[in-house]
Structures are given as C-alpha cells and as structure tokens.
C-alpha cells in the first residue's frame, strides 16, 4: 500500500533534473532571441557601397569613419497608411546593430543622428538598436539615396549591420523588442546575478565547507560589477579604456576555483598564485596610459582569461573522467564558451568574417549552467535533509513500535514468571501443610474407626495452616515479632483449650532480621508444628514461646514442661519436616528432650534475601 502510494507520488511529481532545467532556461533565451530575429513586414535595405575615407591620424585616438551609401527603394507598402504627417513619420529606418555612432542622410538631407556612446555597455548581449523616423517631406516613393556615416570610437572600427525599412508603427514595435533584449533583459540578468550572488554568498557563509557556493557568489559578483548598467552614471567610464573589463580576469580565476571545487579537487596552498596575474594587470592598467592599457594590458588580460578557461576546461574534463556528472555537464558548457571565445578572438583578429561576438552568449549559457547546478545541489541537500528527517521519523516510529512490542512481551513474560513463581509457592504451601492435613481428615473419616476428636484435630490443623498461609502474605514490614503476635492470637485459644498456659516472651529483635512472606510462613509453621506436638504428646502445663538475638543469630524457642517427646515424634515425619523447613531458611533446629520437658530451638542468621 505504502509502496504503491510512493510510486504514484513519484509519477505525479516529475522531478526536473539539472539538465532539464538547463535546457528549459536555454530554450527560453533562444525563444526570446528568435522572437526578435523575425522582422515581419520590415524590409531589408539592399547592402550598401561603403568606403573608409583616409584621414591623417596622428594621435591614434581620433574616431574612425565609414561612409555607406544605400539605394533606398520605398514602395507604398512601406508607408504607414493612416499616419498623421505632423505627429508620426510614415516610415522609419531600423538599425539593430552598429558601432558606435551614426548619422543618416536621405537625398542629402539629415534625417537623424544616433550616439550610443553614453549607453555603450560592453556586457550587453546585443548592441543597442537605433530607430530613425523619416518624415514625409524627406523621401519620395521610388529610389532614394540613403547615406549613413558610421563613426567608431578610439581603437574601434566603425561597424554597420543590416538596415530595415518599413511603416514606422511596425518599426517601433520591432525596435521595442530589440530594446527589450538589448537593454531590459541584460539589466534583469544583472539584477538576477546580483541577487543570486547574495544568496549563494549567504549559503556559503553558513556552510563554509561548501566552497563551490562561495566561488560562484564571487564569480557572479564580479560579472555583475563588470556588466553593471550603473557604472557610466558613476562617472568612472573612460571614453577609451573599459576599466571594468579588468574584472574579467578575476572572474575567470573565480570560475577556475569553482571548477576545481566541482571536480572535487582539494585546494592546494598555491591556489592564491592564480590571483596574481589579474592583480598585476589591473594594477598596471590603473597607473599606465590609456594607450598602453588598451594596446598591451588588455590583450594580456584576454590571454589570462583564455588560460584560466583552458585550465578550468581541463580540470572539469578530469572530473568527468573520474565520474562526476556535474563536472561533465559543466565541462560541455565551458568547452562551448571556450569555442565562442576562440571565435571572438579570431573575429577580433579579423581572421574570420562575422558581426556577432558570441562569448557573451557562451558566458550566459555557462552562468545558467552553474546556477542551475548549484541551486540543484542546494535543493538536493534540502530534500535529502527532508528525506533523512522523514526516514528518521519513520525509523523512530518503527523503533518505538518495536520497543513497545518488546516491552509488552517482556512484561507479559515477567508477569507470567511472577505468576508461575506465585503458583509454585502456593502449590508448595498448600501441599506441605493444608493438603496433608486434609488427606489425614479424609483417611480418618473413611476408615471410620478414628474418633471425632482426631478428625477435628486434623481439620483444625488444616484451618490453622490455611490461616498461616494467609497470615504470611500479610504486611508485617519484615517484622517477625508482629507475625508472631498474629500467630499467637490464633494459637493461644488452641493451647488454652488443651489446658495449657502460654508464656509469651518475645524480645524486640532489631531491623537486622527482615523476613519475607516465604520465610515468615516457614518460621510460623515450625512454631505451629512445635506447639501442636506439645499439645498432642507432652502433657505439659505451660508452653513458653520466645525469641532472642544471640551471637548474631535469631533464636526462636518453644519450650514445655511436659514429659518429653516420644520416639515416635523424634523419628517421625513431623520433626523431619521441621528440619527441612529450617534448612530451607538457611537455619538449623536443636531439640532437647527429657522427661522434664522439651526445648526446640530454631537458629536463624540474617537472611541474605527476602
């Protein structure tokens, strides 16, 4: 039943593996990109004819210029039908990718100028798009001459991507999508990174042994700082050097450390050496001139990043070889990033053609992978804790149940044992005294020759013994003299009825002599038997019953002034019984018998147990 329930649960609650989560995250990103890559009704303007005018460049920091000329053909479908010419331009030019500023002229007249200088953020996934509305008086249907001047910042080549033309409302719509991808999403990503960094830092702070969380937090923090959209507002942005890019080498070291942790490599004492190159480069860049920084230190930084990336890839590959599934997963992502970085390097060295830098995309994939892994690790730990707690609870319940059963069994056994013991005792008690007397009564009555006196004698003896059994079970608090007092109460009428006087001389015996019911019964039986013998055989006038403590022994005495015991009694069953009882008490019996009387003494030592 339980098993079935569990199976059902596992069917209902489909658990997402880290790979699945990763794929879902990636799919979301690509779907988003796909949504903006479709330009619907916008029409791509045919490729331009471009030229780069050569200007004397003495400083090396003057902006580079690229001049492109398009043949812009505008048809009726490109014009927004119901546009108010005053408020809205009927057509618009959409320029998704360019670098770093542009000025557009149609038929020799200026239609717009875009400067993205202030908005330039190196960490952005895509270039900020530009939209240029074209008023009705600036174009005509048919062929138009579109000239665009692209300017690049110092050290950067101007670049212009494809240009689209269409009704301004559609162009604005597409522009918003591009803007969302280029500006909003990166901001969200950075915010998310900052938040996750904080969360992972908190986790690491509480669980220092989980260094992976610490490195990931540091990595995210550095990456966030580098890509932060608030940096320009802080006035730290230099027009020529992206100082914040100096954080990238540090990020790469943090990533390497993370990779080492993930691949379960023990930290070595030389780990700090990895931090040396980024520190040197950063320090040098801060004190050197912008040209040196851009020309020498930046490539050095890129090399450091590449090295760290390669080492991390190797470490992860090694982890994979050792059978760590997380390492395999991260290795693939890192390899992808490395590939993208190589692509970007070749791109920047103009070894290949292309417009799009892929490293940032690779880094995003890697980040998603890392975050997925670590969140998964954390939730796994949590659910494992839950499972453990659940198991512990189950185990505790089981053990409790087992214990209860065991306890019940034990107490039943114990009760059974006590009952058996009691039964045995009662059987012995009944057999020893009462049974024998009842048999005697029966035998005498059946024989028919015995006198009623003799039958009455045995019946009385049976009753006496029964009372002794009952009396022995009562609470004397181990005080034998009290038991003897109760016995006296019963015995005295019998003694008196036989015309004998009872002298009662018990001494106060100390607390050293503490007797349980069993011993009490045996002692009382010995006394009863002794007195019965006196009544039957001794022809005595007085019986003296007493007890005293002598040389560590308790001595009980039954003495009479009769004619002494006949040999029948001294050799008979009665005395043998008394001796047996004395033995069972760990004591002994002395009998002195003469024609002037008999003394029976019972010597008892301190009972070992009650």
């Amino acid at each position, binding site marked *: 039943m339980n098993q079935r329930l569990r199976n059902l649960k596992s069917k209902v609650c489909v658990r997402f593996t880290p790979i699945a989560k990763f794929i879902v995250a990636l799919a979301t990103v690509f779907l988003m990109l796909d949504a903006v890559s479709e330009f619907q009704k916008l029409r791509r303007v045919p490729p331009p004819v471009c030229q780069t005018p050569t200007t004397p460049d003495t400083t090396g920091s003057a902006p580079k210029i690229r001049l492109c000329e398009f043949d812009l053909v505008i048809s009726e479908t490109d014009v927004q039908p119901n546009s108010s010419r005053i408020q809205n331009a009927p057509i618009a030019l959409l320029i998704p990718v360019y670098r770093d500023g542009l000025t557009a002229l149609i038929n020799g007249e200026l239609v717009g100028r875009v400067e993205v200088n202030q908005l330039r953020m190196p960490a952005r996934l895509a270039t900020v798009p530009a939209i240029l509305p074209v008023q009705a008086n600036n174009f005509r249907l048919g062929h138009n001459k579109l000239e665009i001047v692209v300017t690049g910042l110092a050290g950067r080549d101007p670049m212009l991507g494809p240009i689209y033309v269409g009704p301004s409302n559609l162009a604005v719509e597409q522009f918003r999508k591009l803007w969302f991808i280029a500006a909003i999403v990166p901001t969200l990503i950075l915010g998310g990174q900052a938040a996750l960094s904080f969360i992972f830092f908190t986790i690491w702070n509480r669980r220092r042994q989980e260094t992976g969380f610490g490195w990931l937090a540091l990595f995210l923090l550095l990456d966030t700082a580098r890509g932060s959209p608030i940096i320009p507002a802080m006035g730290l942005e230099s027009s020529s050097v992206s100082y914040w890019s100096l954080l990238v080498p540090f990020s790469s070291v943090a990533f390497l450390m993370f990779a080492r942790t993930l691949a379960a490599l023990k930290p070595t004492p030389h780990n700090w050496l990895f931090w040396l190159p980024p520190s040197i480069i950063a320090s040098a860049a801060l004190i050197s001139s912008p040209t040196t920084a851009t020309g020498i230190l930046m490539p050095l930084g890129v090399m450091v990043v590449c090295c760290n990336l390669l080492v991390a890839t190797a470490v992860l590959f090694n982890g994979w070889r050792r059978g760590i599934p997380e390492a395999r997963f991260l290795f693939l992502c890192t390899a992808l990033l490395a590939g993208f970085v190589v692509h970007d390097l070749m791109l920047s060295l103009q070894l290949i053609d292309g417009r799009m830098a892929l490293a940032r995309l690779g880094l995003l994939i890697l980040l998603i992978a890392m975050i997925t892994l670590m969140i998964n690790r954390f939730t796994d730990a949590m659910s494992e804790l839950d499972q453990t707690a659940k198991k512990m609870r189950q185990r505790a319940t089981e053990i409790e149940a087992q214990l209860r059963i065991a306890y019940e069994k034990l107490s039943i056994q114990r009760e059974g044992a006590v009952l058996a013991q009691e039964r045995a005792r009662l059987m012995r008690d009944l057999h020893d005294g009462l049974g024998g007397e009842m048999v005697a009564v029966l035998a005498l009555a059946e024989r028919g020759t015995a006198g009623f006196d003799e039958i009455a004698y045995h019946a*009385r003896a049976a*009753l006496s013994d*029964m*009372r002794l059994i*009952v*009396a022995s079970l*009562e*609470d*004397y*608090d181990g005080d034998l*003299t*009290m038991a*003897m*007092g*109760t*016995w*006296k*109460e*019963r015995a005295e*009428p019998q003694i008196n*009825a036989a015309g004998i006087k009872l002298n*009662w001389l*018990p001494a106060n015996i100390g607390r050293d002599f503490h007797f349980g019911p069993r011993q009490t019964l045996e002692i009382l039986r010995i006394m009863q038997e002794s007195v019965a013998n006196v009544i039957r055989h001794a022809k005595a006038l007085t019986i003296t019953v007493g007890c005293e403590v002598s040389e560590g022994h308790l001595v009980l005495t039954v003495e009479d002034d009769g004619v002494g015991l006949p040999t029948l009694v001294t050799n008979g069953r009665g005395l043998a019984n008394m001796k047996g009882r004395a033995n069972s008490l760990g004591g002994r019996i002395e009998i002195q018998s003469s024609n002037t009387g008999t003394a029976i003494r019972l010597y008892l030592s301190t009972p070992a147990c009650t």
Partner: protein
Amino acid sequence: MKFASDLNKGKHNILIIEDEPTVRDRLSYAFDNHEDCVVSTAGSIIEARTAFRLKIPDLILSDLCLPDGNAIDFLIEARKEAPLAEILVISVLGDEKTILSAIAAGASGYLLKDAMPNDIYSIAMDVLAGGSPMSPSIARLVVMHARASQSDQCEEKILDLLAPLTPREMEVLWGIAKGFSYAQIGLQLGISSKTVPSHIKSIYRKLRVDNRSSAVYEAVQQGIIKL
C-alpha cells in the same frame, strides 16, 4: 437504655447473621447453656433486617458475605438505629480485609468461625461488658496504617483517625501487635497494667467509624478493599 423487651429483661439479645447453617448452629450453640443470652439467627440480610426490627439486639455477630449482599451497609444502619449495639464480625481467616471491614462497620472486633464455644461466649461477654479487646492483628493493622499515613502523605489512607495517635498509644499498639499481655505491656512501658485498657479505648475512639464518610467505608465501597 436497654432495648430488650420486658420478657427478656436483664438478658442479652444476640443476633447471629450467618448463611451457613452448620456454622450458625455452632455459634448459636456457644450461647445455649447460658441463661443470660437470648439468641436469634438470620441467614441473609433480609432476614437480619426483620429480626433486627422485631427485637433490637445488644450484640450482633455477623458474617460479611451473605447470599443477598455485603453486610456492611446493614451493620452501619444497625449501629445508627441502635448506637449501643455491639458488633463482632465473623470470619474464616481473620485476614486484613475482614479486619478493615469490621472497623468500617464499626465492629468491636471479629470472631473466627472455628473459635471454641467457650471463647466465643467469653469474647461476647467481654464486648457486652464494654470492654474493647484488641487483637494483635487489629493492632498490627492500625500501627502499620497509622505509620504509613504519617510517613507518606501520598499513600492512600485506609484508616483515617479522628485524631493522631499519641506515642504512648503507638507503643501500646506495638505491644499488642507482638502478642504481649496487658501486664507485659505495662511492665515494658513502665505504666500500670490497668491503664492499658484505657489507652485501647482511646485508640478505639479515634478509630471508631460510625459514619458513611469514613475512609474505610469509602475504600470498601469503591472496591479498594474487596470483600
């Protein structure tokens, strides 16, 4: 105040309540040869009520377990109606439960069923003469319970005494419990043997349980003491 009728003036009216005819006859026989006793017998509580109304007894000898129930309630009623009537409980074993029940019923003591006729008569006369014989077993019980209730408050009190027993009274009880005679007790305690009975009377006064709120009665009713 005598409850005897004019016909039996000066005689002791004794009511024997016992369901076993043989035992009843045996007890009755103990008074047969004594002119000063008039014996009526009952075999059940119903018969006992009838006999009690017919003639208020001076002494009731009663078994506790009767065919139609426990005699304790009847004995307490009887004591209320006839405060001077003395009660002796009849028992086979003379065990603790019997003694506690006897105290609950306000009895002066108990009789064993196999007691010798002479002893039965002498005990009856002793009780009727206002003597309060205390047997070692009663003394032991009182001592044990008094000590237990003084030392341990948590323990369920079976006996609640009207007033605490004095040390001297405890000593007297110890002596009786160990079977000493009044003379021996007097000798041991350094008091006159004549003062021992007065101590015993005092103990009985503190023990007397004439009302239904007594602890022993409660204990019997609630089945703590099973008869």
